[in-house]
């Protein structure tokens, strides 16, 4: 327990810390009935309708779902009536129409003004420094929003430290939101090291330390559905990433979790059209970081056309060109990240490739090749093993396209023309190569049976970022 947290669970201070800035269901408030009723009578807790019916249809006040098809009807045994519940946000606990959402109106917590919160001792590159200073400026001047467009591997986490430091010095509350739980898990230890005196929590589905009382919070965007008017500085990592741009309830949650006078920092390596347009029209402040932290250009992907790709895939194998390439890689000591479009293909290809590569002696043990995908329970462990170089080849779906860093890999995309590989995904995937200062390069190959727009645009955009970074 944080030494500043008082022990009495009913003290004003604890209640304020625990419930301020939230929007919760009764079952998310671990107080006994009597205490809760008393706080309700004193109007410290305020009830809000959870699902409202408007002329246009129902609306969930937690996730803003307004799609009729995403509401279910339940003959409720609690209130003995038939009514709606929200299916959209049910993973976060079911919202029933007969239950309220509660916000805290009691006293506000006093967040600490840290004199010197940052314990990070690294140094920024010139480019990182420019971005870092720009973020501090935005925080200091209470600017509404700022977009950081930083190439994959620019070292964006370190660029954030100064801005977060200046917010913590002023006693502000900070949140870094990301669409992916992997990213929260990867950043949490780094943040705990960089801000060792600050109470930090990581919130994601299944996280343990999850009461959301820390001054500095790293959270998946889903978890922000439980917050309201909580944060003074909101950093949205990978703002372009699925499912953030595809699911309107997540931008909604992120924006509700902010205070009125908050500053929002968007981070992205591949801004979506909406943001590019706003940048072009000059109504979104931004700064571009075109160079990786180690000063080398982004690896430019090559395309390999294989007419027999469909046939190979039907047999759950990569095309023949892949094997030729595998034998002739410039740096065979690098690990290999193999992207495939679907979970099924990942699993089946894993089995087939193990057989084949054992025979060709490209691997010496079946443990050298591992498959990972979104619904894999051992996902964290496998990623860790790959990072520790205990695995030579990792077959993955797009779940590893971003947010994870491996020091020295070559990257192959099998069936790069598949629709899951859009421009942003391909740029991100290519960005997995050449991440370390000891091996700043890497081969990236798109295996396809017909060039797509996404492939061409991804390569064009990588080249253009390199040009903006002053290469060639």
């Amino acid at each position, binding site marked *: 327990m944080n030494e500043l947290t008082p022990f009495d669970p009913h003290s004003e201070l604890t209640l304020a810390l625990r419930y301020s800035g939230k929007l919760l269901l009764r079952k998310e408030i671990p107080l006994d009935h009597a205490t809760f009723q008393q706080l309700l009578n004193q109007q410290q807790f305020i009830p809000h309708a959870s699902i409202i019916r408007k002329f246009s249809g129902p609306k969930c006040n937690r996730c803003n779902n307004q799609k009729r098809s995403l509401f279910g009807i339940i003959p409720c*045994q609690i209130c003995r009536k038939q009514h709606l519940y929200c*299916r959209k946000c049910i993973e976060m606990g079911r919202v029933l129409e007969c239950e309220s959402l509660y916000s805290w109106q009691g006293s506000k917590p006093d967040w600490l003004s840290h004199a010197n919160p940052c314990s990070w001792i690294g140094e920024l590159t010139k480019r990182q420094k420019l971005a870092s200073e720009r973020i501090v400026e935005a925080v200091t001047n209470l600017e509404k929003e700022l977009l950081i467009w930083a190439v994959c591997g620019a070292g964006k986490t370190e660029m954030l430290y100064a801005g977060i430091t200046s917010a913590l010095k002023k006693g502000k509350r900070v949140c870094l939101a990301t669409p992916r739980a992997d990213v929260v898990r990867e950043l949490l230890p780094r943040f705990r090291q960089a801000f060792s005196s600050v109470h930090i929590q990581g919130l994601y589905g299944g996280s343990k330390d999850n009461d959301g009382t820390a001054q500095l919070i790293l959270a998946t965007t889903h978890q922000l559905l439980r917050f309201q008017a909580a944060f003074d500085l909101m950093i949205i990592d990978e703002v372009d990433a699925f499912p953030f741009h595809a699911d309107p309830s997540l931008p909604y949650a992120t924006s509700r979790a902010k205070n009125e006078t908050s500053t929002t920092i968007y981070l992205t390596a591949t801004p979506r059209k909406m943001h590019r347009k706003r940048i072009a029209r000059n109504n979104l402040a931004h700064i571009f970081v075109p160079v990786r932290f180690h000063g080398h250009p982004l690896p430019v992907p090559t395309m390999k056309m294989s007419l027999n790709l469909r046939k190979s895939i039907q047999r759950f194998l990569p095309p023949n060109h892949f094997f030729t390439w595998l034998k002739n890689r410039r740096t065979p000591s690098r690990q290999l990240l193999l992207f495939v479009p679907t979970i099924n293909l990942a699993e089946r290809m894993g089995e087939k490739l193990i057989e084949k590569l054992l025979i060709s002696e490209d691997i010496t043990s079946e443990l050298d090749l591992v498959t990972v995908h979104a619904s894999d329970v051992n996902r964290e462990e496998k990623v860790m093993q790959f990072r520790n170089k205990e695995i030579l080849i990792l077959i993955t779906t797009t779940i590893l396209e971003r947010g994870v860093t491996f020091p020295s890999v070559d990257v192959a995309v099998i069936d790069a023309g598949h629709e899951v590989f859009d421009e942003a995904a391909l740029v991100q995937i290519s960005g997995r190569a050449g991440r370390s200062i000891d091996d700043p390069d890497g081969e990236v190959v798109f295996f396809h049976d017909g060039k797509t727009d996404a492939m061409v645009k991804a390569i064009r955009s990588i080249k253009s970022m390199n040009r903006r970074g002053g290469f060639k």
Partner: protein
Amino acid sequence: MNQSVFLYNPAIKEMISKWKYRGDYCLGDIFKESFVQTFKTAFGNEINDSIVVPIPLSDERLLERGFNQSAMLADYLQVEKKEILTRIHGEKQSKKTRIERISARNPFSLNAVVSNKVILIDDIYTTGATLRHAATLLQEAGCPKVSSFTLIRG
């Protein structure tokens, strides 16, 4: 004698947990057709003089969940449903060991007399202890025949 529609596997487990524990009531409808069809095949000639009795939840569990999944399944069937069992104490079955589950005292009480044949309805058959307790109670009260029908067999 118990009959079931599906065998327990990870995919069904996932679906059941979304339906029951996350409380996504509508998901139950996924099972409706198979449940009704298998029921007809299993009990075809006995349907006319039988009633179905869903295994109840404890009050506590019912207030938490908002619905009783067994009653929901029973409602799919074209047979008269009578909710004549109540749960006396509401400990979680899953927290007990297998032996404890089997030897525990009868958790149900009966609040009506039945002269019809009874088909007990539950979502999962694991050790059969729950259904056996309910069946014993009904037989002692003079019920001519008790069988059971569950969605899943563990």
